[in-house]
């Protein structure tokens, strides 16, 4: 009964209550949405790391990870494969040869990690092949005299393999993409001119277009001019099994694009047998064996099991290899937890003020209630409930709004193009798809109720301090 009285009391002063509720709604919405945006960023990153870069479990000799010493091959690789096979949750296994070296073209060079892979097996384990940029070839599809290499876009750019040319085809693309004919016409003087970097192209067309046009269509122009001559060659230089410098020419069979600049710049994939032949390594020698699990959640258990069965080898899961991934989720959760607490604390001020007003303007009524027999506990509960109702109504409204907005933006995505460069350097996508777990809402509800309770303490105490005699005497 006290509950229903408290609820009705909240609505006595509609305007005042609605103001507070609106504040809570806005605050909660903002906090939840921001959290969802960041959360999704991390979820995307983890997915990418597991499905494109690392897979779930990696096994190699201790010390290999730091040095990439070619001589440091796994002793007893068959045993490793057997152990992995028998571990519950493991769906695929592949062995790799890894060598550090330099990739170069006549225009540039870069340090890379050359990974020799079993193409068919890895295609089942990774989605990297889906990241192939259309038109650059294939994931080890074509047959070729020379060795094939699958490289990242960043590396291709560093080696100046990717160029920017506004060909006739580019102009057709521009038209198809909706770039106005007038703007395209301005770009004609640049036709068939070869630009080695994106920057140079940008400088060139910025000179011909107005600032507004450059801003609006810049992205599309760059994309249309992006050009790569299929089958470009690069030279790979590295040390062989005997420590002698050696190398070979490779044909690029395809270029992939991910959100991780670092990965794109450092990674280069070649067929394992080719690499084995060039390095002079013996059959059955591998540097690293990787395994894919059915589910991310099985990671800790599975890798612990493998580790136990393979003492003497370094067994790491993706969380341990990229400790920052596991930690950053934790870290960000904590930061936003604090942020949410700050918001709720800020809201508490408003709630306290409102409740205080509500109590002080009811002195006579409270005096009367105490006179006719409503004891202190009930008065306290009533005030407390009023406060809780204020925060809960606002809280639920805020959560509802945020749920809707999150659902929408999850579909359409939020584009942070402006910060794409910086984000992708760390491996984060510049396209966010906000998402959040249900347990977050539960925890938030608890926090909101607590805020309501804490805000009510001072006003409730004031209510209890009222002496019925004085209260009844006059307001």
């Amino acid at each position, binding site marked *: *009964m006290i509950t229903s*009285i408290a609820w*009705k*009391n909240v609505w*006595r002063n509609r305007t005042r209550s609605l103001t507070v509720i609106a504040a809570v709604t806005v605050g909660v919405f903002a906090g939840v949405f921001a959290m969802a945006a960041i959360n999704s960023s991390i979820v995307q990153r983890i997915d990418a790391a597991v499905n494109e870069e690392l897979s779930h479990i990696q096994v190699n000799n201790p010390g290999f990870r730091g040095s990439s010493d070619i001589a440091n091959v796994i002793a007893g690789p068959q045993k490793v494969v057997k152990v992995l096979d028998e571990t519950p949750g493991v769906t695929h296994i592949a062995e790799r040869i890894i060598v550090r070296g330099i990739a170069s073209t006549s225009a540039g060079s870069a340090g890379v990690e050359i990974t020799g892979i079993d193409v068919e097996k890895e295609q089942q384990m990774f989605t990297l092949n889906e990241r192939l940029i259309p038109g650059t070839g294939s994931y080890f599809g074509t047959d070729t005299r020379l060795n094939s290499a699958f490289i990242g876009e960043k590396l291709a750019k560093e080696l100046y393999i990717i160029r920017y040319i506004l060909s006739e085809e580019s102009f057709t693309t521009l038209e198809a993409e909706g770039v106005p004919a007038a703007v395209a016409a301005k770009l004609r003087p640049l036709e068939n001119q070869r630009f080695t970097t994106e920057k140079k192209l940008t400088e060139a067309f910025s000179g011909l277009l107005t600032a507004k046009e450059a801003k609006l269509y810049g992205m599309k122009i760059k994309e249309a001019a992006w050009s790569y001559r299929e089958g470009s060659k690069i030279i790979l230089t590295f040390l062989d099994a005997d420590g002698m410098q050696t190398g070979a020419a490779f044909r690029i069979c395809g270029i992939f694009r991910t959100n991780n600049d670092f990965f794109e710049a450092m990674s280069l994939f070649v067929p394992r047998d080719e690499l084995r032949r060039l390095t002079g390594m013996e059959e059955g020698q591998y540097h690293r064996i990787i395994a894919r699990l059915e589910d991310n959640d099985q990671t800790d258990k599975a890798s612990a099991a493998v580790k136990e069965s393979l003492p003497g080898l370094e067994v790491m899961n993706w969380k341990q290899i990229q400790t920052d991934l596991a930690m950053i989720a934790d870290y960000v959760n904590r930061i936003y937890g604090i942020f949410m607490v700050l918001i709720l604390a800020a809201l508490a001020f408003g709630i306290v003020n409102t409740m205080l007003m509500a109590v002080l303007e009811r002195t*006579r*009524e409270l005096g*009367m*209630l*105490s*006179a*006719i*027999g*409503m*004891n*202190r506990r*009930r008065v306290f509960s009533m005030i407390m409930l009023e406060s809780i109702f204020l925060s809960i109504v606002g809280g639920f409204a805020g959560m509802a709004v945020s749920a809707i907005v999150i659902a929408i933006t999850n579909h359409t995505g939020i584009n942070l193009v402006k910060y794409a460069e910086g984000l992708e350097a760390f491996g984060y996508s510049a396209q966010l798809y906000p998402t959040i777990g249900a347990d977050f809402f539960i925890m938030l509800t608890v926090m909101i109720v607590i805020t309501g309770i804490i805000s009510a303490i001072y006003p409730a105490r004031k209510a209890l301090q009222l002496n*019925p*005699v004085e209260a*009844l005497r006059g307001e």
Partner: protein
Amino acid sequence: MKVVEINDVFKTYHDTEVEVKAVNGVTLSFEKGDFAVIVGPSGSGKTTLLNLIGGLDQPTAGEIIVAGHRLSELKPSELIDFRMEHVGFVFQSYNLIPVLTASENVGFIMSLQKWPKEKRMARTDEMLQSVGLSDRHKSRPAQLSGGQQQRVAVARALAPRPQFILADEPTANLDTKSAETLLDIMEKLNREEEMTFIFSTHDVRVMKRARRVITLEDGRVVSDERTNHHS
């Protein structure tokens, strides 16, 4: 049967440096069925005495015994429960809870006392009928006239069958017709339920109906007359 015993009670306030003897040695008792009025000029101590009887305040000296309970032995939190169980209040104004309907207001104390729903509803209906407001049971106080509000207040005060009803200037804000109606009802309840009524008032209309008039002056009883009035 003695419902209230007031034995040599004093109540002194310290208003900054001045000492105010609001009740200055009062000894009284009330019997069941009394329809008594306490009168006197402003500052005579009427309201204070009423507050003491109702357990809203503690005497500085002396003893008040209600239905066998010594009020001085009760702690403030116990006094609240005591009031709930034994005392009915009707104030000059602000008697009702604004957010509740008439019948919810009438049933309020019974809800606090955790009466089973049926019993409570039955008694509520009964009380509303006694005060002639059955048709307004769904109305909120803001939708009732002053007189109607006071009648609901009486119904509420009476519903849990307290030892007595204390009414502090219940008719002060009412026009004559409403006041008369209210007093009719109170007299009827006094007769039918043998409910003890103790008023504090300067309203002549009330005094005319009283069967016992106690006059206070400067905190002391100067006269205590029983009369035989018929309404």
